[in-house]
């Protein structure tokens, strides 16, 4: 947070002649796939983080891998910076364009190339929507597990770039745990296959490195995804609590009972009320907090787990328990959770969605301090929480056109992220760093650690032209940002000149 003054020009690049590049791009792409007039570029000025719009020099929409490679080669030849974009639903500004660069949009690569129902995998292009995969594999009784809240719109290339999670990742993992292989185009425009159709590959785990790399290392043109058998049954429990702390303890009690629910979500009063007024999911308006806990598996497994979970929730002091009666009811309960962000967006015109992860035991303390900060920054904050895996989404509500609210919201967000690091957590669990949290990277990592990231980046992109200014800060930025990373009691940054 802290980008009211835009600062993306961290990696100086040679100024290039726009017309020359447009001509080159037009020689390999159709006219409608190359956008360079301001009016055509405006739709691409931001992604899911709307506070920092920027128009790119050129946007291209290639139709296949071959065209992607050609675009990469042209940009490489002219040393043009490139930013990649999928569906543009990212919340950390990872796809915000670079003023002097090309925006490479993957939204036309939407083919599901192959579904192997026996081998249980699907091969898809990066522009395929997350939800479309499970829709296409439904007839084989298979599905793709990661389900970010934006799954109706977000595309799989972006999921790989951000290592997206979702409400089911406690049991089924993140994107990195559910993909087998990618076709990866390097900055030079060459294709490398990373991973395999088996479960592992020799050498270093480049698939793990590339997943979540936020478009800093290259671009993915094909993803082989693991498919899982669709559970026979899924059932959800909604439990109300009159106290946030009790709800937090209930989460630990469920885990202590040896249960790993398919989903375990928590919402506080502000989030419950916003959602209830938005879509009427049947949430308890009078509760201080609620848990949404899902079991899936065979009919027998689900029945026994639901019973066991209900007992735990009762013992933990739940004031009211509702068990979904059928599939429609279950989906309705989830619809509320999945619409929490837009619901909050209706309370005030703007919101920042934070994404810290904390140890579960720190939850009561963190929620208390977030509430105290409401007074400090004079802004409201609603909380939704992937409680099972400790991933907190405070939603800071503000009106950017109202005084210094944007600035206060940025400070509030930064304070929350720093709090997450302080209690032993991280600044981002699943949304990525992008530009939004780039300063807080300096809080979480010391300069040697950041240098390691920069070295890895150099192995793929020696001149720093892929998604410049995102995800990994320069050491100078950290020195200027001025936050001391205190690392095991030692002060770091001794060798960096201060400005």
């Amino acid at each position, binding site marked *: 947070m802290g980008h009211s003054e835009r600062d993306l020009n961290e990696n100086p690049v040679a100024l290039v002649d726009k017309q020359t590049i447009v001509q080159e791009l037009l020689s390999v792409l159709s006219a409608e796939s190359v956008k360079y007039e301001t009016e055509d570029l405006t739709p691409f000025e931001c992604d899911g983080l709307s506070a920092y719009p920027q128009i790119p020099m050129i946007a291209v929409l290639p139709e296949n891998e071959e065209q992607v490679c050609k675009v990469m080669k042209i940009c490489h030849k002219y040393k043009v910076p490139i930013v990649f974009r999928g569906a543009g639903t990212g919340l950390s500004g990872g796809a915000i364009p670079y003023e002097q660069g090309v925006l490479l949009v993957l939204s036309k690569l939407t083919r599901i190339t192959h579904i192997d129902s026996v081998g249980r995998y699907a091969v898809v292009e990066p522009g395929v929507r997350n939800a479309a995969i499970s829709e296409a594999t439904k007839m084989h009784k298979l599905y793709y597990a990661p389900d970010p809240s934006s799954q109706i719109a977000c595309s799989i290339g972006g999921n790989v770039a951000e290592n997206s999670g979702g409400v089911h990742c406690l049991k089924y993992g993140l994107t990195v745990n559910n993909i087998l292989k990618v076709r990866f185009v390097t900055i030079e425009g060459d294709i490398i296959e990373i991973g*395999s159709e088996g479960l592992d590959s020799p050498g270093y785990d480049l698939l793990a490195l590339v997943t979540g790399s936020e478009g800093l290392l290259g671009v993915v043109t094909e993803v082989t995804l693991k498919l899982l058998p669709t559970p026979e049954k899924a059932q959800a429990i909604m439990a109300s609590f009159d106290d946030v702390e009790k709800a937090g303890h209930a989460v630990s009690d469920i885990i202590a009972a040896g249960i790993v629910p398919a989903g375990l979500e928590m919402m506080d009063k502000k989030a419950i009320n916003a959602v209830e007024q938005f879509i009427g999911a049947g949430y308890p308006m009078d509760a201080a907090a609620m848990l949404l806990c899902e079991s899936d598996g065979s009919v027998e497994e689900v029945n026994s787990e639901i019973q066991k979970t209900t007992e735990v929730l009762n013992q933990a002091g739940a004031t009211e328990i509702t068990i979904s009666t059928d599939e429609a009811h279950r989906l309705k309960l989830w619809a509320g959770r999945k619409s929490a962000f837009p619901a909050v967006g209706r309370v005030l015109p703007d919101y920042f969605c934070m994404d810290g992860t904390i140890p579960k035991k720190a939850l009561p303390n963190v929620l208390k301090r977030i509430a105290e900060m409401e007074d400090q920054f004079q802004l409201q904050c609603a909380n939704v929480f992937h409680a099972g895996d400790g991933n907190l989404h405070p939603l800071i509500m503000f009106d950017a056109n109202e005084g210094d609210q944007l600035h206060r919201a940025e400070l509030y967000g930064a304070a929350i992220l720093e709090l997450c690091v302080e209690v032993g957590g991280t600044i981002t669990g699943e949304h990525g760093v992008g530009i939004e949290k780039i300063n807080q990277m300096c809080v979480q990592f010391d300069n040697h650690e950041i240098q390691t990231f920069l070295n890895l980046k150099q192995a793929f992109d020696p001149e720093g032209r892929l998604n410049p200014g995102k995800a990994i800060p320069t050491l100078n930025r950290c020195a200027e940002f001025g936050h001391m990373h205190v690392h095991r009691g030692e002060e770091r940054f001794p060798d960096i000149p201060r400005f």
Partner: protein
Amino acid sequence: MSSDAAVINEFKSQITDAKQRSACIRIRGGGSKDFHGVSLEGDLIETKDFSGVTEYEPTELVLTARSGTPLKDIERTLEENNQILPFEPPHMGSEATFGGCIASGFSGPRRASQGAVRDFVLGARILNADADDLQFGGKVMKNVAGFDVSRLLAGSFGTLGLILESSIKVLPKPEVERTVFFELDHRSALDKMNTLAGTPIPLSATCFDGNRLAVRLSGSEIGVTAARKKIGGETTEESSYWESIKEQTHPFFEAEGCLYRLSINPTAPIDQYDDALIEWNGSTRWIWNNGTLSEHQEFANQYGGYATVFRGNRLGEPINMMSPALQKLQQKIKISMDPDGIFGKKRLFTEF
């Protein structure tokens, strides 16, 4: 704490000294996986003295331990709290350490259903080639800040840095586990593995050893019993079966020579390898002394995967083959983490 600092300082001076002498370091825990690799070169740094579980709260499902901690101690600690290492790591010797478990990346029978070491690594603290003490990832379940260096370390065999400490996600121990056997030929066994893996049952392992297909179910009593009825098969009391597959003490592994491992599409035909042991729902095939690495890789290429020499490699010969572009990228990763090539020279690749 002072002794910990002393051990770390000793590691640091060994690294600095090796760097000054342009020498190479070989990091070793219990030495139980020394059989795997191109060659073993360099001065030994032993992690055994840097031991102990540093953080473990069962309800967080996260355990942090130092590299030299005996793997069996970790498993005992978890057992006391009714939890497990979900990837069921092979020890391959009584001296196996936690650090070796992470650095080898070897996973056991539960891998196909739950995931590998790399799927459960959450964070790592390492000494790099400059002897800097670095922390990547975290002690929480989800973390996407920075590149995923801690997962990159899983399977790196000590060639990217010295792992001091790792944090991993753990899981509750299944209430019950039952194994059923099916008398099948290799082709039907492979088909059945793939069918079962696509069926919503609490499957936790499959293995075909040439005679029988073994299928393990893990979960709640009621769920496992229901699945057991659904799939049929014979139950026998062979509690040591999966241990023998995991630790390679099963009679199949009693041969001498070169053991190859194919990691390929689970539906790849088996006819050419009808004497293979098949694991992980069809995607892993073990082969003894039959053909060369390049012949196996040629087959693997057709089925989207790789052949590796798992044990019995001739000193200095490659243990894997990949496209030149991919190998070059692997080398760039190595150079970015260890520019002078101090750590584990030629452990994984013949060139570096």
